[in-house]
């Protein structure tokens, strides 16, 4: 079967696939066509680690980053023609920053492993990619797939005493399907007991011969934890010997909800993943659905999407800027940043009708066209912001105390950043100008003229300076949108767009029926798989959707940047002080909703 696949699947003129076939033999793989054009190969479970190691170290332009690792419960999937039989599939998505877009499509690589049985086993990838650790814990937590050899395979998103693995198809998706929840004294005691931190379980010592370490709970409720986030610190005085980030307090099952919501009604949920990103979150989701449905979005819609996304990049970065300096101990900047955010939200509200969570993008375009007079509002904002940024530059960014507090704090190299799957500002601060808007242009970003600011030392100060510069670049992009806004429709003329086209509804009965079904059930998106990555406010965010030819998604995978960034914390902060941790945590720029989903 594998023999004839290379000719049937587009993208197999790909050099990586040729190298893989040469090394492991074409029989080792089954290629799968996908809607996003990403080369997708099925590999045997016994061979996956070998293949990953080869891709990471054995080829030119290696895949240094494990971008995502997730799983799919395949047991109820109907449209699996041509795919190897499987009860569960584990999916590895690899990213190489050295590879550019090819004519055939994206240079990234997706590997899949078919697994059989109720609770299948698979060797761990932590021996190849350090950041596989949390991803494998998540897959075990949510699917019950066991990774043999994993150093610490325990629940990560759900409470330790949770029963079941929620993303399995047999697990209930609604509270009404459970018995009523009762919290009695015994259960409360047991739950609290389970949350106690036991250093030995993490391979930590309680002290050396001469001294005891202090274990400090930093969070889940701490002013500088930026949400319900807990880091257990092992400290020697004020110096951090080691630490363990503990996440999951903000988990709300966003991926499971995707399996219960229509394609259209899931859009507002995406707004709340990175709750500072607003419509920037809608973008990868609707673009993925559009790939599955084969919808071409008109240029006006694309340009408006870019413009509003950049507005949200600015509001998110302003919040980062204010809270970062607040965590450094400066009191005032956060108020100035919020004043500026307010100005941006005034524009956003006028355009979308909503402030933080507009859910304004639609499958195929936008909810409505730009309002009359939008040019004046946008122009006022782009004229206003750069002056304020210049003031901040003098008052805060060049302040010697700020520099003293943030220079060389939690610095890491490009290689470390890639190893941990760090993207966005955290990666660019190390000196690598990797921005998806340039590296994998989407939504028409290739038509814009802007620069990708980079740092040089990869420390907290670089991350601050870089994001201030990114705001300037966003203003530049918004200006170009303002000056070159295409005319034309704001939504594609396609039957699968939402809400569906209505103008011919009352003309004949067929379109009336179709419209009625599309509105009541939502569109039926053709079976297939696709993934879209975007450079979101905090790093690379992507939605990997599997459609089984239904009104709802079969599997919604949300890969968020913040999740990867938090996993990196211990490696970057060991040996520094608690005040440095606060600065580092602030410089990551994350929100817990984005981490826990």
């Amino acid at each position, binding site marked *: 079967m594998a023999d004839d696949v290379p000719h049937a699947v587009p993208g197999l003129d790909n050099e990586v696939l040729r190298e893989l076939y040469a090394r492991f033999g074409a029989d080792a793989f089954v290629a799968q066509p996908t809607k996003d054009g990403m080369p997708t190969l099925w590999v045997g479970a016994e061979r996956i680690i070998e293949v990953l190691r080869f891709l990471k170290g054995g080829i030119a332009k290696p895949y240094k980053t494990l971008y995502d690792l997730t799983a799919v419960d395949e047991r109820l999937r109907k449209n699996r023609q041509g795919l190897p039989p499987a009860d569960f599939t584990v999916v590895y998505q690899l990213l190489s920053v050295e590879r550019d877009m090819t004519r055939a499509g994206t240079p990234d690589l997706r590997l899949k492993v078919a697994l059989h049985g109720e609770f299948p086993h698979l060797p761990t990838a932590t021996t190849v990619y350090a950041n596989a650790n949390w991803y494998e814990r998540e897959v075990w937590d949510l699917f019950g797939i066991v990774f043999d050899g994993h150093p610490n395979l325990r629940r990560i998103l759900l409470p330790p005493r949770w029963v079941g693995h929620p993303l399995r198809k047999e697990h209930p998706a609604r509270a009404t399907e459970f018995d009523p929840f009762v919290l009695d004294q015994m259960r409360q005691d047991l739950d609290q007991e389970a949350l106690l931190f036991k250093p030995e379980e993490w391979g930590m010592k309680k002290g050396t011969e001469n001294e005891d370490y*202090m274990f*400090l*709970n930093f969070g889940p409720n*701490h*002013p*500088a934890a930026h949400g319900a986030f807990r880091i257990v610190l092992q400290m020697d005085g*004020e110096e951090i010997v080691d630490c363990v980030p503990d996440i999951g307090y903000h988990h709300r099952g966003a991926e499971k909800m995707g399996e219960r919501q229509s394609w259209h009604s899931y859009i507002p949920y995406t707004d709340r993943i990175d709750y500072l990103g607003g419509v920037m979150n809608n973008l990868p989701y609707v673009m993925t659905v559009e790939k599955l449905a084969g919808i071409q979005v008109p240029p006006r819609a694309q340009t408006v999407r870019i413009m509003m996304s950049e507005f949200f990049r600015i509001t998110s970065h302003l919040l980062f800027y204010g809270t970062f*300096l*607040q*965590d*450094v*101990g*400066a*009191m*005032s900047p956060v*108020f*100035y940043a919020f*004043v500026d955010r307010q100005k941006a939200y005034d524009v956003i509200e006028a355009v979308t009708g909503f402030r933080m969570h507009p859910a304004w993008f639609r499958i195929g375009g936008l909810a409505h066209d730009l309002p009359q007079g939008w040019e004046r509002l946008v122009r006022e904002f782009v004229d206003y912001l750069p002056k304020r940024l210049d003031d901040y530059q003098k*008052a*805060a960014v060049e*302040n010697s*105390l*700020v520099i*003293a*507090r943030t220079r060389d704090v939690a610095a890491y190299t490009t290689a470390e950043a890639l190893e941990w799957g760090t993207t966005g500002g955290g990666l660019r601060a190390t000196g690598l100008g990797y921005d998806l808007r340039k590296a994998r242009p989407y939504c028409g970003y290739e038509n814009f003229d802007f620069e990708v600011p980079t740092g040089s030392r990869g420390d907290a100060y670089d991350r601050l300076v870089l994001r201030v510069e990114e705001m300037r670049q966003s203003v530049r992009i918004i200006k170009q949108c303002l000056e070159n806004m295409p005319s034309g429709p704001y939504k594609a003329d396609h039957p699968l767009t939402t809400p569906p086209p209505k103008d011919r509804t009352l003309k004949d009965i067929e379109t009336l029926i179709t419209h009625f079904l599309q509105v009541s059930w939502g569109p039926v998106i053709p079976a297939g798989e696709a993934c879209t990555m975007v450079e979101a406010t905090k790093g690379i965010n992507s939605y990997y959707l599997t459609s089984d030819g239904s009104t709802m998604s079969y599997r919604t995978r949300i890969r968020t940047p913040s999740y990867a960034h938090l996993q990196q914390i211990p490696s970057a902060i060991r040996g520094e*002080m*608690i*005040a*440095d941790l*606060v600065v580092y945590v602030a410089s990551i720029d994350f929100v817990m909703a984005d981490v826990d989903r």
Partner: protein
Amino acid sequence: MDAIANWFASHPQFTAALIACIKAVVILLGTVIVAAWMIWLERRLLGLWQDRYGPNRIGPFGLGQVIADMIKIFFKEDWIPPFVDKFTFILAPAIAMGLMLLMFALIPVTPTWGVADFNVGVLLFLALAGLEVYAVMLGGWSSNSKYALLGGLRVTAQTVSYEVFMGISLMGIVMLAGSFDLRQVVEYQAQNGWNIIPQFFGFCAFVIAAIAVVHRTPFDLPEAESELAAGFHTEYSGMKFGMFFVGEYVGIVLVSAITVVLFFGGWSGPGVASHAWLAFPWFALKCLFFMSGFILLRASLPRPRYDQMMAVGWKVCLPLSLINLLGTAAVVLAGQGS
């Protein structure tokens, strides 16, 4: 009526003591009220500088906010966590507020007003400022909580390193005035000009040390909100928290007053010689200037890291105040020699 007046006239010592007591009570109440009003001033000024309003609802310009806050804090449950060392836990805020108020006894407000004149006023001030650390340290330790403990540790290190040169930075003034008595320091300045000019480096070191001792921003490391939640007073609530809180503002008023007394001529100013009533307005105006300065510092500066703050103390301020001391001594000796 006459009988009472006669009785007072025939017991002059008692009368003098009574008047002194009344003056002391007036100064005490005045200090507490000014400190409470200072909270309002700080919030309004911060609001002004941060593009927002601050408290503006209760009374004219929101002046009644302080009263409302006080009523609230008096009626709050006086909660003592079960895990604390109860006696020390209660003692700490009392020390914090008590010592600050006690130090005010040393301030010569006007030529005729002041609680007590000690001939070792400067030394007593330094001693009481040194004791102040116990409030925070004991509060942090007795809370039996890790954040509070870290705050307590920080304040101990901070106060120890900053007290060293706080004392040294004042010795130049003592040499010039030839006395430890604060009233004589003021009188010396009234005749010879303010100490800020000859003692500029001493002034710099002293102000830094004074901010560190009352742990105001940027030296608020013991209660660094973004790092240690609330630091040493994490476990405190109600009136006991209120005493720490008001104690901090009394501290600002005190540090402003002592700076004015030592470096800016206290009550002296144009017109005081001919119109004695101008002494207090001058004193109050100068204090207000420094109080607002402290608020401006809080609005504009970030917080240094613990080790950086210690480094500045030992490596910059201590040598600076030592050089200042040597220089002053040389000048004074040269003056005597001629």
